[in-house]
Each structure stands twice: as structure tokens, then as C-alpha cells.
């Protein structure tokens, strides 16, 4: 696994007259889990899309080639008429994975879907579809994994399984994980570091504890987050 950190340098993005991101710079180390959070319209998905290579930034650069970055979109990007195994096999071939069958088998085990490998995706629950969605993002064993609102369609039990799986990747395989979330408690609980975006600007980059410390009177992380945004005029 790569030991290179993910570096985003001076990322700016404009859609016509509107600035979606302004001079965002951060680094994520191997094995680190970074949460990107902020209010609606803050630019979280735009930042992740640039990191994933879907959008070219107006200014700035990203250190990693897109082929070394696994990407898991918010909505399951899978073919509902194909089975679990067929989806995995298709994307493994498109990713030019050396041993397609081994990669598919590994992901079926990691996603806990071996028994349902022959089922059409459309017949699976939203949670299971999301597990396949994540498994596809991991097929090429990328050193960096980007997850866009990964738990938004999952129930608490499935969410727990998801984060256990993602934490294991970071811990055991040194995968750099960057995820976006509205859920600040999820960011507090699972992220090593938090990036707070608002109106396209990076307002904070640090640990959840450091964020909480910036707002002295807050009793919990969510209150600290809201208080911080108030202090910053958002």
C-alpha cells in the first residue's frame, strides 16, 4: 500500500459566476480517516468530485492519479439488472484488475454478500446495494478511498457494519479514507480529522476534540460544530 499522503493544494472551483470552492488546501495521511462536513451547499460533494477526478478544479491540484483513488458515490452506482457478482466482475475488468476472479471473491467476502452473489442488485435492500457500491470502489485495492455520504441510506445496524469495515481498511491496510457527511456525530466518532467547509471555504481542519475546544461553552460535538459556524458567521 502507498505511503504517499493525499495532498489537495489550493483547490478552487467556479460554476460560472458562482464560486463553489475557494483555495482549499489539506493533507490526508495513509491510514487516516478524514471527514468533510459542513452545511448544505458548503461544497463537500464538489470537493470530493475533484479529488475523485470527476471535475477538473478551476485552480489548484490533487496529488493522486484518479486510477489510485477509489470512489464511492452517494447513490449506488451499480446496474440493478446485473447480479452482485456480475457488477463486481464488470468493474474489475474495467479497472484492469490482474486477477478478476480473486478480486471479486475477496470483495464478496469483505462485503458479506457471498450468499447473494447471484442475486440481481435490484432485488437487494438499499443497504446491501450500498455495500456493493463500496465494494466496487475497493476492487482495485486503492490507497485512497473517497466516500460521499456513505451512510445516508443505511439503518443504524448497517451503518455500524459499514464503519467497522472502513475503519478496518484504514487500520489494517493503511488506506487513506476521506468521506463527506452531514452527520457531525458520525464525523466525531469515526474520523481522525475533520474538515469544516462553509460556502466553499475551509473554515477548520483538525481533530474533533480541537474543534470542540474552539467553542468553550459547548457541551457536545454537535453543539460545538453549530457554535463554531455561528462564530464564523455562517
Amino acid at each position, binding site marked *: 500500500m502507498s505511503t504517499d499522503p493525499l495532498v489537495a493544494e489550493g483547490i478552487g472551483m467556479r460554476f460560472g459566476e458562482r464560486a463553489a470552492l475557494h483555495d482549499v488546501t489539506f493533507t490526508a495521511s495513509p491510514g487516516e480517516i478524514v471527514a468533510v462536513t459542513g452545511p448544505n451547499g458548503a461544497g463537500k460533494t464538489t470537493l470530493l468530485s475533484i479529488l475523485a477526478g*470527476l471535475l477538473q478544479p478551476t485552480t489548484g491540484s490533487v496529488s493522486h492519479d*484518479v486510477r489510485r483513488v477509489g470512489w464511492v458515490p452517494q447513490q*449506488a*452506482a451499480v446496474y*440493478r*439488472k*446485473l447480479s452482485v457478482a456480475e457488477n463486481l466482475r*464488470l468493474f474489475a475488468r474495467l479497472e484492469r484488475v490482474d486477477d478478476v476472479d480473486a478480486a471479486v471473491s475477496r470483495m464478496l467476502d469483505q462485503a458479506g454478500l457471498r450468499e447473494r452473489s447471484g442475486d440481481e442488485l435490484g432485488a437487494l435492500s438499499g443497504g446491501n446495494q450500498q455495500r456493493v457500491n463500496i465494494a466496487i470502489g475497493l476492487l482495485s485495492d486503492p490507497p485512497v478511498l473517497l466516500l460521499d455520504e456513505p451512510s445516508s441510506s443505511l439503518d443504524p445496524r448497517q451503518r455500524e457494519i459499514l464503519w467497522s469495515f472502513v475503519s478496518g481498511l484504514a487500520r489494517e491496510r493503511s488506506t487513506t479514507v476521506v468521506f463527506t457527511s452531514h452527520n457531525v456525530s458520525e464525523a466525531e466518532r469515526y474520523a481522525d480529522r475533520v474538515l469544516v467547509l462553509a460556502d466553499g471555504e475551509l473554515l477548520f481542519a483538525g481533530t474533533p476534540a480541537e474543534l470542540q475546544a474552539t467553542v468553550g461553552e459547548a457541551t457536545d460535538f454537535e453543539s460545538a460544530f453549530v457554535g463554531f459556524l455561528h462564530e464564523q458567521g455562517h
Partner: protein
Amino acid sequence: MGALRFLLVKDLQILRRSPLLVVLLALYAIVIGLPVGYAVSRPPSKPKVAFYNAVPPSSNTFQLGGKSLDASTYADKLFDAIDPIRVDSRQAAIDKVKSGEAVAALIVPQNVTDALQSAINLSGSPQRPTLQVYYAADNPLKRRYVEDTITAQVAKANQALGQELTKVAGQYLGILLKGGGFSILGQKLEVLGLQRSAQVLQGVAAALPEGDPKIAAIEQVRRFAQLAIDNLDLSDSVLASISDPIAVKVRTVDGPTSSLDGYAVAAAVTIALMFVGLLVAAGMLALEREEHAYGRLVRGLVGRTTLVVEKVLLGALVAAVIALALVLLLSLFQPVRFERAGLWVGALVAGALGFGAMGVAVGALTRDVRASSLLAFLLSLPVAALALVPSGAVGATAYDIVQVVGSLFPFKPTLQALDAGLNNAGPGLVGALAHLAALVAAYVVLARIGLRRFGART
């Protein structure tokens, strides 16, 4: 090529998992294609026909049974069912057909009244008066309809002339029966008549002693007999003149044309190609978006151009298979020239690629399968209608606009290519294939530009 092949196999798997949709699509294309293909064989009600009358006004009359008749009286009967565009020369009339302003050109040659006069005289004529008709070769339904129309109207004119000729024939029969004078080959002749011949012969027989020749009376009988023999020699042309005084000579402009039924097969297959090619290519490209897979694919796994080309090939493949099945089905009821299979299969594949390319352009402009299907349907009907507007059905300017707009879509070149492949019809296969190739390239570029709208959002 690997990515293209993987995507193609994936899409075929998806279609295979949707058998009801595919069967309905195939049935729809065939059920719509067949009746529309044959329905478009029904031509406009009153076609425009370029008309050139080379006969000078002073030569418009001819003599029949001592009466002077005006040929224009009979020519006007032709205009009961056609809308004439009067022109000043033969070439101008043919040009009207070539430009599509008229479905046919009707030309009355300069010698027609002389030939008519000659034909209805007992002198007989080696050449009947002949009208000349030129048809456009691009559409056999126009040819058949105008041919039927002109034939029917010429028959009416012939009937009117025939009535006059019947009166004359009655006079001739009276002369033959009772005797009298008439003109033949410029000479005035006195005819004895059958009745008087009988009387003469009876008198001669009664009065003459056996062996005493009455030369004069016998000579009269001999002349009558000889005249009857001479006139019988002319009877074929005289009878033809009475039954069908005016003939029609048909020519086509710009190459051969197919039979109407062969054209209907080409039209039905083109319609099937259009529906299947458009809907499959547009729908399957939109499906990538609807399944949110588009973003995942184009971030390094598959190039956007590869994705477009794959959908073109997919739409063309499915459309070609279904259209081929339709041709085989139709071959049970209509003659299909399998010895030309290489040509019409090539035309069918080229048409399928044309509609597949148009389909991806539609799919690139829409965000989901329902929108792409709706847009494909909305485009299909006017595209087909534009291509099937016959020349002469609208004004010259409108027809030019229809031609230009129609040339932007693959329907007309596909129909021409299939008609050429199946029926050896004009204007030929090469031009239509080149037209389709240009359209495929243009639609692929258009689709590629349209995909920019997808951007990063999946």
C-alpha cells in the same frame, strides 16, 4: 477495445434480463412498421404534374367525320385529377420533376394532332399519337399513382374520341352497305355498296346468256371486292385508333425505380430500424446516468467517446437483428431478392448505425430513460413524415425545406439505401451509404458534446 466489449456484453445482459421490454419493442417496431410502410404507399390526392404542350395553338384542331374538333377539349380531361404546372419547354418540365416540384412531367409532342388526324382517317397511320410522361425515380408510389391517374384520364379522352370515331365508323358501314363516295389516300372514290352489288349481280346473272361477259358490271363488282380487301389490310390500325386513339410512353428521370410492394418492404424495415435503433441507443446511454454509473465509468475506466461508440453499436446491433427478422417475415408474403442480400444487409446495417448514432445524441441530451424514450418518440414521427413527403405534395420552397431538414436525419438515406439494396431502385446505394456515414460521424460528435452536460454529477 476491451472496455467497449465489456460494456457491450453488459448491455446485452441487461437487455436479456428485460425480455418483456425487448419483445414489446420488437413487436411495436414491426406492428408499426408494417402498416406505416404500406400506408405510405398511398399517394397525395391530386399530384402536381409539369405540363408542356408543344402543339401550336393554330394546330390544335383535327378533322373527324367532316367535323372540326379541338384537341385541347380532350387534353383538359387530363387535368381533372392532376394539378398541372404549365411550362414552356420539354426540359423545363423534366427539370420540375428532377427538382421535386412535380411528381411527373406530361409532354404533348408537336406532331400529336397530325398523328391523331392520321390515325382516325381510314388511311391508317404507322404511328399513333403518343403522350410522353416522365416520373421521378425516387419513389415508386408516386410513379404508380401518377401512372394510374394519367392512364385513367387518357382513357377518358380516348373514350370521348372513340364516341366520335364510332359515328364515323357508322357512316363507313353505311357506305359499305348502301354505297356512296368517300376519300381514301387522297382520292375520291365511289363505292357500289353491298346492296347494289347484290342487285347488279342478280341483274347480270338473270340477263346475260351463259358465257356473255358484261365487262362493265363485273368490273364494278371486282373494284368493290378489291376495295374491301384493301380496307381489310388497314383494319388493325383503324380498329386500334378507334379503341385507343392516344397512347402514353413512360420514362423515368434519374435511374430506375422499384416496385411499389418492394418499396413498402423498404419503408417498413426502415421504420422498424428507426424505432429500435433510436430507443435502444438513447435508452441505454440514459440508463448509465439513471443507474448513476456514468460518473464511475468516465473517471478513468472508459473514455466518453468509447461509451458513445459502444451505444451506437448496441443500438445498431439490436435494430439490425430485429429488422432482419422483419425482412425474413415479409419474405413469406412478398418476393425478397435474396441474391441481393449482400447489398440490402449492408444497407440495413448502415441504416441501423445511423439510427443508433442519432439515438446516442438523443440519450446524451437527456438525464433518464423515460425522457430519452419520450424524446426519441417525439423525434421519430416527424423524421419519418419528413422523409416520406412526396415531391409535388407541397410547394417548391416547402419541399426544398423538407428535403434539407429530412437530410439531417437517417430515415431518408436509410430508405433509399434499402430500396436500392432490395429493389435496385434509384438513386443508388453509394450516395445513400455516404450520406449515412456522414450522419453517423455528425451524431457521434453531437453526442460527445452532449455528454459534457453530464459533467461530474452522476
